[in-house]
């Protein structure tokens, strides 16, 4: 077997382009992951036991996976942590009396205004580092919270129970642990009476009035914005705008519409697709062997028809190229790819109010979301495939064939370009000397 141990060095310029592309793809994936992680954290917390006073336990965000995991704090972190712990412990000692007095108030009778405003005000203890606050555990943090629980803020954002003034009390502490409950040791939860989960009491929640008002006003305004888009915009305004655009165009010395970059790119993409399909069709047609005059005639007509289509495509390319370089184009760009218009003119997407997307069960939602991700990933993969093709195939052509580095290059290229990097081929030398 050959070429396995040999390595191939990419020339610097080519390497730079490839690594930049791949790094870009990796970064965008990491971004997406971070976003997802953020919403996962919020959702998980919502499904855990709700203790209105409890500060959400911070979970370290996933940064680059390569960097050392967040559970190994630096020495500076540890120092700060030590100082913080001391301060918090002192605070606990000093405030012990206060906290004992205030304990009764912390029972979250969800309808009591005084209580909720007290509990909601709990300043989140801002630990200098995430690891710090995590390592602290729940005990000292609680002390701090009690200390600050007297401030009155956000009176309008209280939880309200629906209908009668049911007090939400979970008698059995164990019952409080819903299916989403994670890494929350029972010892860290102080009072059994404060706990409830979304699963048990979710249907009793009610949105604050102020929010409900703002939200309904918001959706009304968006709807209004969508409706006037097509109806209210008076003809006079439209005419004046068009006139302004025309005048501006004339004053700058070019009278024709110049396509924007996105437009050109979309055209190029659709033409590329056309070219590939046309070529495939031509090959299919040439491979067929007509047996009677009907087939022969049909084949001839198809080939001529294809010729015409190719001519049309070429014509469109010329018109586009001319339009971009500002020479007055002989042909008007009448045919436009559909998705472009919304980018460049925005007239198509006239509705700005959100539409309801109805799903019926978890599995359906998963399929939907996964498909959406997969489509995006395939697009990314196709883009990378093209980049790799453009960079690697010419290298194979210019290298001296047969030597170990060349074989290594072929092997990797085959794997990356034909197998998505998942499989390799084996190269054997059929040595006549053996």
């Amino acid at each position: 077997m050959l070429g396995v141990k040999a390595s191939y060095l990419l020339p610097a310029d080519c390497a730079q382009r490839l690594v930049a592309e791949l790094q870009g793809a990796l970064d965008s994936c990491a971004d997406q992951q971070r976003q997802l992680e953020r919403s996962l954290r919020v959702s998980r917390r919502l499904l855990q036991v709700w203790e209105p006073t409890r500060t959400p336990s911070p979970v370290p965000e996933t940064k680059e996976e390569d960097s050392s995991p967040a559970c190994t704090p630096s020495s500076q972190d540890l120092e700060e942590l030590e100082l913080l712990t001391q301060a918090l412990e002192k605070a606990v000692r000093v405030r012990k009396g206060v906290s004992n007095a205030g304990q009764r108030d912390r029972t979250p009778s969800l309808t009591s205004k005084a209580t909720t405003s007290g509990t909601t005000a709990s300043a989140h203890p801002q630990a200098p580092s995430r690891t710090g606050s995590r390592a602290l555990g729940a005990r000292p943090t609680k002390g701090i919270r009690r200390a600050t629980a007297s401030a009155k803020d956000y009176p309008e954002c209280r939880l309200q129970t629906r209908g009668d003034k049911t007090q939400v009390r979970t008698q059995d502490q164990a019952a409080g642990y819903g299916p989403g409950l994670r890494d929350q040791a029972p010892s860290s939860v102080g009072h059994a009476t404060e706990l409830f989960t979304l699963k048990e009491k979710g249907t009793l929640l009610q949105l604050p009035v102020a929010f409900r008002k703002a939200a309904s006003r918001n959706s009304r305004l968006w709807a209004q914005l969508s409706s006037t888009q097509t109806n209210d915009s008076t003809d006079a305004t439209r005419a004046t705008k068009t006139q302004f655009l025309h005048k501006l165009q004339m004053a700058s010395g070019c009278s024709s519409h110049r396509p924007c970059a996105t437009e050109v790119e979309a055209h190029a993409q659709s033409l590329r697709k056309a070219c590939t399909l046309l070529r495939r069709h031509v090959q299919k047609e040439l491979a067929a062997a007509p047996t009677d005059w009907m087939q022969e005639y049909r084949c001839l007509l198809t080939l001529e028809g294809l010729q015409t289509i190719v001519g049309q495509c070429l014509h469109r390319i010329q018109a586009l190229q001319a339009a971009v370089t500002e020479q007055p184009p002989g042909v008007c760009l009448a045919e436009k790819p559909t998705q472009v218009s919304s980018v460049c003119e925005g007239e198509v997407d006239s509705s700005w109010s959100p539409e309801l997307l109805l799903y019926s069960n978890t599995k359906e939602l998963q399929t939907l979301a996964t498909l959406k991700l997969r489509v995006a990933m395939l697009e990314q993969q196709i883009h990378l495939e093209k980049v790799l093709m453009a960079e690697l195939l010419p290298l194979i052509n210019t290298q001296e064939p047969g030597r170990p580095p060349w074989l290594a290059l072929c092997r990797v290229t085959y794997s990356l370009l034909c197998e998505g990097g998942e499989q390799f081929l084996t190269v054997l030398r059929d040595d006549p000397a053996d």
Partner: protein
Amino acid sequence: MGRRRSRVEGAARALPEAVAALSRSLPAGPSPEIFRRAKFDRPEAAPVLWQLLLRVLSPLAANNTWTDLAPEAQARVVKSALGSRGYPRSVLLQFPDGSSQGSRELLLALSWLLAQGPLLEQLLAQTRVQVGDQLPQCEALTSPGPLACLVATKSPVDLRLVEWLMGKLRFRWRCLILSQREQCTLLSKIHLYTQGCHSQQSLGHLSVAETEMLRDPESSQQLLHALESENARLEAALEWRRCELVFWQWMDTVLDACSPETPAVTSQPTALPMISEGGLGELESVRQELLALQEELREVAEPRRAAWESRVGGLGQGPEWSNSRKALREVVERELADLQGSWKLCSTPAQPQRPHRLVRSKDGAPRRQGLQAAEVIRTLSAKEDCLKKALHQLQCQCQQELARLAGTLPGLIWVLPPGH
């Protein structure tokens, strides 16, 4: 007479009102005074307008990525973005970077953007407060922004690094899918558990943001505040629509004021950098391929046509003959029309561009108005198939190319991985 005068006064009042509405609806709400100063080309208006244009032209600037840029860099970004959108006035594009001159030109550029399309609406939509739950937004995956990092590799790199990076990417794809699955499970649970809580009947349940708002009062305050300020901007945008006419009449005079001073730069073929790099290169390569295909077709079709004509001369030309020829022509035309239609399929957007809110429908409840998930799944699956085919085709193309290269070397045996 008096009536006319009051009309004039009304118009005089209308302009400041229109400008004020515009200011309030724009991000960061610039002072209306800026617009008046810009008409007279005052330098003090320029920095604000550069920043505003930056904000308006690049969605990225909204999250403070670009607002820290030096004025020179800001100007460069604005100019290139304007250029790539096809802004016709080259006066602005030729300003030296970082100059504080030309506030009038900047005003013209902003007005051009406003006149081109629903700019205010798009800006509002970009920063819209997300109250409802959505499907993952994957735009970031497919368009690696203009600030793609440049890796400083000055020396040759082992090809295995590329392999390693590809492997890492595949791993990240898998992680993303898994996390997405978990997120869907949680989302659906939250929707189920809060069923019936929403004041709006059509929604039924709470979204994550709404539930989180109830859990954490601080986020509740933030959300409320964000909604209220968005409402204010929306109102301003609606107000602007009512009175923008007078603004456009005023802009006409602004344009008049600057036309004589800045003579038109006549037909310089200025292909803009952003177009020429991406789209134009691709266009040229497609053109070359098509030219080759055209030549190939000509070589095949012309002799066939000639042969056909000479044969047809000997055949009878009854009505039956011409009928069957006509039928054949129609069949071929339809086939080719289908072919032309097929390359438009892949370029149609995968999902509705409209914003959406995920809603879990209750079991057994009557079908509500809205987009059905099953429908979107069908569209996405079609798109996925289409992309898979495209990828497979590229891979086959590479395989052929490599096989051709390998074939030129005797003495080597290529063993393909299983499955081939």
